[in-house]
């Protein structure tokens, strides 16, 4: 489990988080959403032990990741948005890394490369950006770490690759693994992520599962804007409006509309989900 308690963090002159608390339970695929610059990548770096909190605690299974204990590092794999290309072939790279990870599965790596339609025997430098990313995703999954942190994983992937990405992640998610996907391309991860975390400057605006969201908010797809809508936007053939849901009616969540609703009603959302 990842626990963040009263965490303060910032870069030299720019505060990023002020007293935020969050937890990530095992077996979930978290969607970490937020506008550019709110600290999505910083949060992933804090969890990976690449950055140190200024105050408060960030713990992975009870241990501060910045200690960089091998036992903690064996549990985490982080693919950053602007990853560095290994000067190697994907198969050799994963073999070199695999010795450090107790649950590494080379057979799985080969299968994943087939699924993702990439050749693991060609040098990283010879692959396209999307292919490099798919190889890294295959690497990450085959190392079988408990925590998989993906920063903008669908950037640079073509449409079929995005579909493959969703399929592979869904297939290899399990009750012992926590996957955190940071993205601002919410449509790419629709039907994959649950729960959703929405970050704002300095704070967490929303952390809720789809069940909690549909329990408290109603997504009304109709010809007109619903009265008392917290937010509405035009869609082909009408409007989608988001209202409070005192009667707990079921509705289909649109992550993009949810995101916009949260951003336009920060305090109200905090009250509703508080």
């Amino acid at each position, binding site marked *: 489990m990842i626990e963040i308690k009263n965490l303060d963090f910032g870069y030299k002159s720019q505060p990023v988080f002020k007293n935020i608390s969050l937890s990530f339970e095992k077996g979930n695929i978290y969607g970490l959403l937020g506008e550019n610059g709110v600290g999505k990548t910083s949060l992933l*770096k804090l969890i*990976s*032990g*690449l*950055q*140190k909190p200024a105050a408060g605690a960030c713990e992975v299974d009870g241990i501060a990741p910045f*200690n*960089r*204990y*091998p*036992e903690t*590092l*064996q549990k*985490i*794999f*982080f693919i*950053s948005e*602007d*990853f*560095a290309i*290994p*000067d*190697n072939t994907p198969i050799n790279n994963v073999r*070199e*890394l695999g*010795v*450090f*990870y107790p649950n590494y599965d080379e057979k799985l790596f080969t299968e994943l490369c087939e699924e993702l339609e990439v050749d693991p025997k060609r040098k990283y430098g010879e692959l396209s950006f999307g292919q490099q990313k798919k190889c890294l995703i295959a690497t990450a999954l085959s190392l079988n770490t408990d925590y998989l942190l993906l920063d903008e994983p669908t950037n640079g992937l073509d449409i079929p690759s995005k579909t493959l990405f969703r399929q592979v992640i869904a297939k290899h998610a399990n009750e012992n693994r926590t996957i955190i996907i940071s993205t601002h391309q919410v449509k790419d991860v629709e039907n994959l992520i649950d729960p959703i975390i929405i970050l704002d400057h300095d704070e967490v605006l929303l952390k809720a599962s789809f069940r909690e969201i549909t329990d408290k908010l109603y997504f009304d797809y109709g010809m007109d804007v619903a009265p008392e809508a917290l937010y509405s936007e035009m869609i082909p053939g009408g409007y989608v409006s988001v209202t409070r849901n005192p009667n707990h009616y079921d509705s289909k969540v649109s992550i993009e509309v949810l995101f916009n609703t949260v951003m336009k009603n920060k305090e109200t959302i905090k009250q509703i989900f508080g």
Partner: protein
Amino acid sequence: MSNTFNIKRFNQVLAYDWKRFIRNFGITLLVWISIPVMFWVTSLVFDFEVADAVRVFIIFGLIAITVMSAPSRIYGKVNLPREGVGFAMLPATSSEKFFSMFIYCSLLTPFLTLVGAWLVDCLMTLLPFGGFKEFIPLKEIFTSGEFGERMLVFLALVATTWAESSAFMFGNMLFKRRKAGKTFGWALLILFVLVLIFEVTGGWQLFEYIFFEDDSVLNLLIYSIIMLLIACGFYFGTNRKIKTQKY
């Protein structure tokens, strides 16, 4: 498993870094150790004999150069925000990563340079033409004089190499770009400031008192201790930077 040092994991780091050593530094090292060939060719073209002292100087000069360049060639990216993530997140302790770095930069690099350049020099000497007439008396450097004195000469050489190597390892962790050049520049600046302080405070007298007494053995010992202390300081700093580097 220990969170400080585990021998099995250390071997894994060594094996991991070996590939990095070969990939990033192998060819560079080969080029450097074949520098004596260049001198041999020059001697052949201009028909002169290269003195033993010059050939010894070339070999030790090459050690100094490879030791300076090894950290940035092998581990040049480990503190960069993007490229360093892999190194930071490799499941091994900072001490294991540091000792592996120490083995490749401070032990293997000078050793391979010494042996490699000396072998190249020997090969050139075997040729019936050119300016390398006899084998250089490398053996005599390490075997002349009393045993204790020989050991001290060896210690002084090792201490000097480690002081240099440690400084460049630390510079490699400290600077993001032009690592070797910046370390060299800073070393010169610090040396200049020290000389200035000695001039102003009259510290040379103490220096002369320590070093220019007749006892050369004592001088060597004091010199070696100072160099080893400098090396320890930089090695400690390097280990600390590996442990606390943020990305």
